């Protein structure tokens, strides 16, 4: 296990270095000089020259990258062009809201997805199975931003049961208020994941339910629930855990569309606003932070997978 951990940590370092190269490259892919991007079209030649010198833009590209990387490692992601606020604390603060949303979506997608998948697998080709799989197919085909708008229309505007936008109400606060605001966006974000988890659970359970030891458990007269949940599901969990782990990363990145629909004040909303304000330090900081968290989540998933299935450690 120590060797596996060391290999994965080394890969993480390589991947993160590559991520920094791409993120650094993104701002240099913007047409025009970064100094022109920062100061705008009305900047004078003297101001541009001064900023270029300040930012080290006169240096070779690899020197600029190393200087930027040094600042990033010290937690300095620069300042927002739009607000002059430091990028790092702003990104971390907004990320908390995205993390709450993504975590809630993961809980919803995993719990409903596993239950749906197990129910389908124990009654293959039944009406319940076919209905579940049709819903799962619709779930993966449906645009998440459209689902969010439709849910908002039904539950907020027509039935008035749940708030439509934001994370807290203007006068409210507290856990219950947060929960009320969280339900619709979390369900929206988790819908596609739920469908994927349901399909994977069904497929994995069907494979396990045909194994000899499950037949033995049934032949011994064990109750159906014990056979399914104690013997079958436990062994079906390995690919399900992998899928669920990967989903958290995708939920973190995919939250941008859901946050836009529900005006959820997360990192996705921050990024979209920064793009239209041409606030590239903020865009760069947001992308880098989410990529870092995504890479760490994937590492944790790989390590968990290695713990669950010893064969993986020795590959």
């Amino acid at each position, binding site marked *: 296990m120590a060797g596996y951990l060391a290999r994965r940590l080394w890969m993480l370092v390589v991947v993160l270095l590559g991520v920094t190269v791409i993120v650094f490259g993104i701002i240099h892919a913007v047409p025009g000089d970064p100094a022109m991007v920062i100061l705008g079209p009305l900047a004078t030649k003297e101001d541009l020259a001064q900023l270029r010198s300040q930012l080290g833009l006169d240096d070779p590209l690899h020197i600029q990258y190393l200087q930027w990387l040094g600042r990033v490692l010290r937690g300095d992601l620069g300042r927002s062009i739009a607000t002059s606020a430091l990028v790092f604390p702003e990104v971390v603060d907004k990320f908390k809201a995205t993390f709450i949303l993504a975590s809630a979506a993961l809980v919803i997608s995993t719990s409903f997805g596993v239950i749906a998948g197990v129910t389908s697998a124990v009654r293959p080709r039944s009406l319940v199975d076919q209905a579940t799989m049709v819903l799962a197919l619709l779930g993966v085909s449906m645009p998440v931003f459209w689902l969010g708008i439709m849910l908002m229309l039904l539950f907020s505007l027509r039935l008035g049961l749940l708030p439509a936008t934001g994370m807290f109400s203007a006068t409210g606060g507290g856990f219950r208020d947060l929960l009320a605001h969280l339900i619709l966006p979390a369900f929206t974000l988790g819908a596609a994941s739920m469908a994927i988890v349901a399909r994977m659970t069904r497929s994995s359970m069907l494979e396990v339910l045909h194994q000899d030891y499950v037949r033995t458990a049934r032949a011994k007269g064990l109750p159906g629930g014990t056979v399914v949940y104690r013997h079958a599901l436990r062994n079906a969990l390995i690919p399900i855990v992998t899928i669920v782990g990967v989903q958290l990363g995708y939920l973190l990145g995919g939250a941008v569309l859901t946050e836009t629909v529900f005006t959820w004040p997360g990192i996705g909303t921050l990024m979209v606003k920064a793009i239209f304000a041409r606030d590239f330090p903020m865009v760069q900081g947001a*992308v880098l932070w989410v990529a870092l968290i995504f890479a760490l989540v994937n590492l944790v998933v790989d390590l968990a997978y290695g713990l669950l299935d010893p064969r993986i450690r020795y590959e």
Partner: protein
Amino acid sequence: MTYAAKRLVRRKSAVLGLGLVAAFGLVALLVPFLPLQEPNEIDTGNRLKPPLTSGHTLGTDEFGRDILSRLAWGSRPSLVAGVVSALLSMGVGVPLGLMAGYLRGPTDHLLMRAIDIVMAFPYILLAIALVAAFGPGIRNATLALSIVGVPLYARLTRGTVLSIREREYVDAARALGLWEVRIMWRHVLPNAFPPVIVATTLDIGFKIVATAGLSFLGLGVQPPTADWGSMLASGRNFVGLASHVATFPGLAILLVTLGFNLFGDGLRDTLDPTMRSW
């Protein structure tokens, strides 16, 4: 008809999927000849009219533009962007995966680390960041989605090629003294292609949704050009007053993506029953 094709047409869901895809494809192809209103014609006297209003089967949007016409014209950028970005991702990813899987060694390590780095970004986030850098527009959105889609094809092809390279016919080709490039191109790639075809079919549906997502954020097709994603974005602002403005573009995206997913699932079950999802 080949055996695989016969098996495919016996699957009702695959035929339904193909039917949906063909229907939308025909609309996109023939829209200039269809008897529809001008998609960008503004009529402020007829703003937000409901469906089945005289002259407007699916109603009008906030500028009085006919929604049916905009849906039909909007199918073009959506389908073209989806197909082109999937094909571009395939065109770059498959050769990379082929080289990595067949040649192994340093080539494989280098290519796979590069793929790992691109995959370290959540898919849509990297596409958004690339569009932010290149500038909004359908061309840059298509390019960004093509780039972020390359790792899927590279990994898939590599995985398939790793097993194919150990087959006896590949050994025989080597023993005959054929060049490695010829072996990869003539013997390995054709046998590695079936899963790629399935992945491309499913990926087109995914890319259509992703393109609509970028347009929804204002990074894809720019107004006033008709596009499903941007129609949804503007429809969101009027969802309480006129829900049809947001409902119909979303339904269009759902149906075309469902079509590609049903057909792709059918293809997968036909070409490799062991890959069956259900």
